[in-house]
């Protein structure tokens, strides 16, 4: 009888406990597998941290051939910092950017801006080729001379004679996709993009016609970026109009 008892006790071992111990054993195996996985390390660098940006802005922020997202490498640090703040505070609207910077503090945003500003990477050839001569002439006229009767200053008056921006906070205009320039001027016209007041670009964009926007963006996107081109040193003469973000 004792044999029988032992036998029946074993047979009465609760099946759910058996199942649970099997699962536990399986989990232990998995844990062992995970533990056995060789440790994976990544470089402790800003480049590694900023891989989140490269999907849209290209490797190291040099833009992709995708045709919309702007290059960020080599733009003035103050400009980049202001834009990161604008995205976090909702003065600029792009779903991806608003989400990415939502929980980053000023100190880290400053580091991010400095990191991209210091990158010195070659520019690709201009995106737009073969635009009509009349369109290019109209664009060139506005960019280099502005339009006095309409109170439109020349782009170069603020963005630097070489159109590569001015340290610390005025962005360059070359090496950007045409669609991006059109998108930004449009966003300013509708009030979707804002900057710290006085919002100089908001005022300018309100004055531009659709034809102006097309001409300016086409001419800018047709210009090659000279080798070694950099943002200008801070201007010594006053800007033609008040600009809230220029000095921040």
């Amino acid at each position: 009888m004792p044999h029988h008892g032992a036998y029946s006790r074993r047979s009465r071992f609760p099946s759910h406990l058996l199942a649970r111990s099997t699962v536990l054993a399986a989990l232990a195996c998995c844990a062992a597998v995970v533990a056995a996985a060789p440790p994976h390390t990544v470089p402790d660098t800003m480049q590694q941290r900023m891989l989140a940006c490269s999907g849209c802005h290209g490797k190291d922020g040099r833009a992709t051939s995708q045709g919309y997202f702007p290059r960020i490498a080599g733009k003035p640090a103050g400009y980049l910092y202001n834009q990161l703040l604008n995205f976090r505070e909702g003065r600029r609207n792009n779903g991806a950017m608003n989400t990415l910077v939502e929980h980053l503090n000023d100190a880290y945003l400053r580091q991010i801006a400095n990191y991209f500003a210091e990158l010195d990477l070659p520019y690709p050839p201009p995106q737009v080729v073969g635009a009509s001569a009349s369109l290019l002439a109209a664009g060139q006229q506005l960019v280099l001379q502005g339009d006095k009767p309409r109170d439109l200053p020349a782009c170069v008056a603020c963005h630097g004679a070489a159109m590569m921006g001015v340290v610390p906070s005025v962005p360059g205009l070359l090496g950007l996709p045409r669609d991006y320039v059109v998108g930004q001027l449009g966003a300013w016209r509708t009030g979707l993009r804002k900057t710290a007041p006085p919002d100089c670009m908001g005022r300018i964009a309100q004055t531009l016609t659709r034809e102006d926007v097309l001409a300016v963006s086409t001419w800018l996107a047709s210009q090659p970026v000279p080798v070694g081109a950099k943002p200008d040193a801070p201007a010594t003469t006053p800007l033609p109009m008040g600009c809230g973000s220029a000095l921040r």
Partner: protein
Amino acid sequence: MKLRGAMLLGLLALVCVVGLASVSALVVALNLRGETTLQESAKVSTPEQVAKGAYLALAGNCATCHTARGGAPYAGGRGIETPFGIVYAGNLTPDAATGLGDWTAAEFWRALHHGRSRDGRLLYPAFPYPNYTQVSREDADALYAYLRTVPAVASANKPHALRFPYNSAAALAVWRALFFSPGSYAVQAGKSPEWNRGAYLVTGLGHCAACHSPRNMFGATIESLEYGGGLIPAQNWYAPSLGSPEEAGVADWPVEQVVALLKTGRTARGSVLGPMADVVFRSTQFLSDADLHAMAVFLKDLPQHRLERAAGQPPKAPPTPHGAKLYEQHCAACHGDQGQGAAGAYPPLAGNRAVTMDDATNLVRIVVSGGFPPATAGNPQPYGMPPFGPHLSDEEIAAVITHVRGAWGNRASALSSLGVLRAR
């Protein structure tokens, strides 16, 4: 016969009227329960009170809702989306015309404790007074003292944009009669002072249950399922259960890891993203180690409910060569070829509950939108996750999510591209 019919009808009408009147009286009585004449505090606002109030305002994460994006702190105007419409947070600055300038400490206390505004109006529970009702009068006075010191901003409160019938005071009164009763934190005698401090912070100012509990069709948290996890209304993020070892229960975590997660946003097991990143970024990273420790002690003691399924055979995601290839191409460089993560930089995906819990909403959101864990003193330069929404199709996202849910010992269910579409 005719007379009898008329009498019957009259009686019925009378019963209806009396019934309606008694229900109304009951609703009114329930809305006023616990309210007594307002007692002004004798205490003037001392610097200690102001400092304490500033700290408590962080613990309650008040500024997040009461500050519009890019707006002045505490000036209100942020729209809180709910399934019933948008509730706009009010101006808490001391501006007399539009803020709390004319409020007394007692009126402020009544708003926190009873959900009633200065003018007697009922407040919508998007303002989490069902949780804040636990806040002590002393702490409410400190909060009030602090809010008197923030710069006054003239910014009129925006009227709520709620749909009918939710926009009516009667509907709100009925809701309150059914789902709200004022309370005060009662010290649990059998528990340590630290446990009680943690419970007070988590259930009151922390209002953790507001997200981490399921809500019924009227938008009220379900008390019996408190901390049981829930989809956050209108945000489409799932706040995982704090009472489940398969989700975000911490019963078997060392206290220090819970503290580290709330303080830095990161542990070796994973990091916070989405709404919880917001909580760490704007609230818990600023709390004292002692308070975080107390909260951890309480959270570890929450009743744990292991899912039935876990004891049986968990569903296993079918192997997908496509998913494995996508993983290798887009994810392995950071998260490791075996989902082991990179210490100090990227969380492991193998054994990570954010990956394996039943509800895959958060996983989809993270893959689609990317994000950085919060920048905190303990993790000042977080590593980011790129948004894959613009680059991968729903089918590809489903394949790679199914892969990580089923690889390296993970045993969670597969996700379809329809599931991705619903969650993104």
